[in-house]
């Protein structure tokens, strides 16, 4: 196989794609517009409410206090009864169990949890001989799949800590009015003044989170994108039959170029077209999600896994397109057959009525549809879990469908 010629054929086909405005419209603009329309129809994304408000936040105060007071309780009180301006931004619930708080963040029920350690006040005891030697950590456990909201919560906590640290400790020390400390007032004042910021914010992420609920864009963006990807891949394979009918395939075969090189170039071009289409739709719907102020990233934040899924989902659908073309007598039959099959598979996969919890929309029968496996894989990834099962199923679909399809297809077009 001549790799240089494979790339030349791929580039040539991509050039043909961009030379046809109709193809561009149906592969890029139409899927995006329909995704947006359907997502809007099934959600309140287009409402007039502020883009970000009432960010669900948890606070777990484990602080056991000290002789100078309970700084953890002070902090908890500020978050539970926030000053004007913050009140609309966050909605804080107090919990006592750290594990429960983390679990709820992982499930997507809260965007972040503020966890105050048991020795928070004790370590801030300015009268202690060890004062200033040990930092105090407040943990911000954030939803890995959310981008904006956890950052907002983190900024509020940092702002609180910055104003709280040294000044508050000094005030607290003085307020304690402990006679024993009067003699040490100068020493304590010096220690507080010299101390570096004592409280450190430790941000951790719920990376293994298993989200159980998704917003409409997270459901419909993958569903519609995968639905249109299926058509693009089928059209791409049928295009090889069109080239045979137009004589350009024969003309290529009459050059000193092997059949495997030509096939690799043509299928490679179709594959790359699919990857480009899916990538552009991901970018477009993600930006659309940001514009609408969605709480979570539409396609998740795990970019490497997302890229891997784009590759395997596109491969599965090129396999499907190949077997449809292989089963068809000619181009016209391939077009009719692919339209019928892909619409049915789209419906089975939930292209038009995805389930809000990411489960198979039509029960077990949905498992027959590569659309379900493809779209649901993206939704699962957006929810924070790498869809390993989906990945294996999609890869297997590609191997089986493409191998059998290529065999049938090669016979059909005598290449």
């Amino acid at each position: 196989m001549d790799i240089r010629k494979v790339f030349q054929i791929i580039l040539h086909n991509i050039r043909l794609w961009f030379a046809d405005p109709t193809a561009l419209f149906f592969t890029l603009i139409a899927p995006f517009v329909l995704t947006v329309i359907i997502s809007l129809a099934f959600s309140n994304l287009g409402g007039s409410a502020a883009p970000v408000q009432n960010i669900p936040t948890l606070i777990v105060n484990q602080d056991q206090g000290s002789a100078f007071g309970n700084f953890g309780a002070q902090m908890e009180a500020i978050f539970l009864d926030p000053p004007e301006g913050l009140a609309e931004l966050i909605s804080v619930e107090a919990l006592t169990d750290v594990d429960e708080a983390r679990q709820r963040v992982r499930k997507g029920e809260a965007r972040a949890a503020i966890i105050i350690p048991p020795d928070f006040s004790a370590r801030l005891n300015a009268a202690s001989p060890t004062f200033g030697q040990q930092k105090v950590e407040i943990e911000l456990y954030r939803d890995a799949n959310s981008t904006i909201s956890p950052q907002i919560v983190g900024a509020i906590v940092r702002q609180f800590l910055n104003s709280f640290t040294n000044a508050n400790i000094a005030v607290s020390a003085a307020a304690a009015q402990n006679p024993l400390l009067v003699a040490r007032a100068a020493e304590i004042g010096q220690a507080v003044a010299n101390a570096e910021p004592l409280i450190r914010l430790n941000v951790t992420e719920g990376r293994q989170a298993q989200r159980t609920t998704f917003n409409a864009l997270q459901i419909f963006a993958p569903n519609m994108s995968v639905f249109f990807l299926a058509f693009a891949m089928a059209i791409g394979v049928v295009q090889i039959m069109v080239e045979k009918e137009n004589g350009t395939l024969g003309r290529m075969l009459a050059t000193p170029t092997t059949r495997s090189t030509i096939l690799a170039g043509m299928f490679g071009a179709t594959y790359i077209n699919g990857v480009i289409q899916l990538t552009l739709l991901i970018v477009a719907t993600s930006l659309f999600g940001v514009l609408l102020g969605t709480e979570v990233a539409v396609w998740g934040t795990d970019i490497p896994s997302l890229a891997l899924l784009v590759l395997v989902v596109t491969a599965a659908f090129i396999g499907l397109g190949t077997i449809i073309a292989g089963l068809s007598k000619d181009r016209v039959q391939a077009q009719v057959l692919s339209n019928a099959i892909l619409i049915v598979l789209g419906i089975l996969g939930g292209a038009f009525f995805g389930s809000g919890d990411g489960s198979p929309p039509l029960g077990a029968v949905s498992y027959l549809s590569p659309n379900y496996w493809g779209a649901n894989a993206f939704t699962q990834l957006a929810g924070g879990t790498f869809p390993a099962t989906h990945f294996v199923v999609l890869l297997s679909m590609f191997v089986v469908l493409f191998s059998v399809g290529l065999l049938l297809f090669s016979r059909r077009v005598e290449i």
Partner: protein
Amino acid sequence: MTPLVEIHGLKKRYAPKNGAGEGNLAVKGISLSIQKGEIFSLLGPNGAGKTTTISIMSGLIAPTEGDVIIGGHSITKNAVAVKKLIGVVPQEIALYPELSARTNLEFFGRLQGLGGAALAKRCDEVLEFIGLRDRQRERIDTFSGGMKRRVNIGVGLLHKPTLVFMDEPTVGVDPQSRRSILDAVKALNQQGMTVLYTTHYMEEAEELSDRVGIMDHGELIALGKQIELIQQTGVKDAIILKLPSEHIEAAQTLLRALPVISNVEVDSDHSDKLHLLSDRGRQALPHVIRALDEANMIPTAIQISEPNLESVFLHLTGRALRD
């Protein structure tokens, strides 16, 4: 001298359409050779097997039996080596209509192995040759049928092939474009290119060919130089005379006596016409005119009909070429 092309017992049976039966035997064991530098025409009606033969020679389809050797390479064993020697001009316009003439040339040129400055130079030369250099950046779908045909030919010439296959390149073109294409074929041949030309237009084969192979129903039914084929048929030249009706009988008697005339008959449809048969019609004509003049019989119309490839095909098959 070793021929450039040798075809040995070439057969092609297509798969049956409905999976039953044997399938159509499109080429029934043809053998021929083509010398370097000649224009060889495969003449025959539609469905004779010409395109199938060229498709096998181009490596597009595999033969059922037999082989084609081009430049010493077997198409069944070393197709890539053969394809480096050949240029193919298919019957249909095999171009990308949404791309420009130059982009089409560049794409197929790259598949031929050209690149960089060499490709650019050849594209310029070919565009000059086909007369479209000033419109090279325009999309193919804006071109006339004749212009598309010219680009279609140009693509087949990019890599300066030793042998070019032209499969009915004048189908569906206007007379002016046809003339241009035929002149181009002659020009290519003068540059040293060997041409295999298929057509069902007898006039084109007659004008272009050094040798002709006549195909019908997948068989090569005649092969040779035009003059040899015509002589093989035994068909004589015909001189058709139109005379006043009262002179017909006397003229018939008078002309039968001439040694250069082998037969004289009155036209079955027109009683004022005489059909004279001769081995050499043009040389016999002065003798005929002189004899009639001496007898004061002046023909009102004279026509000479010489046997051609159409006559050869008719003689061999009992059908006209365009039936």
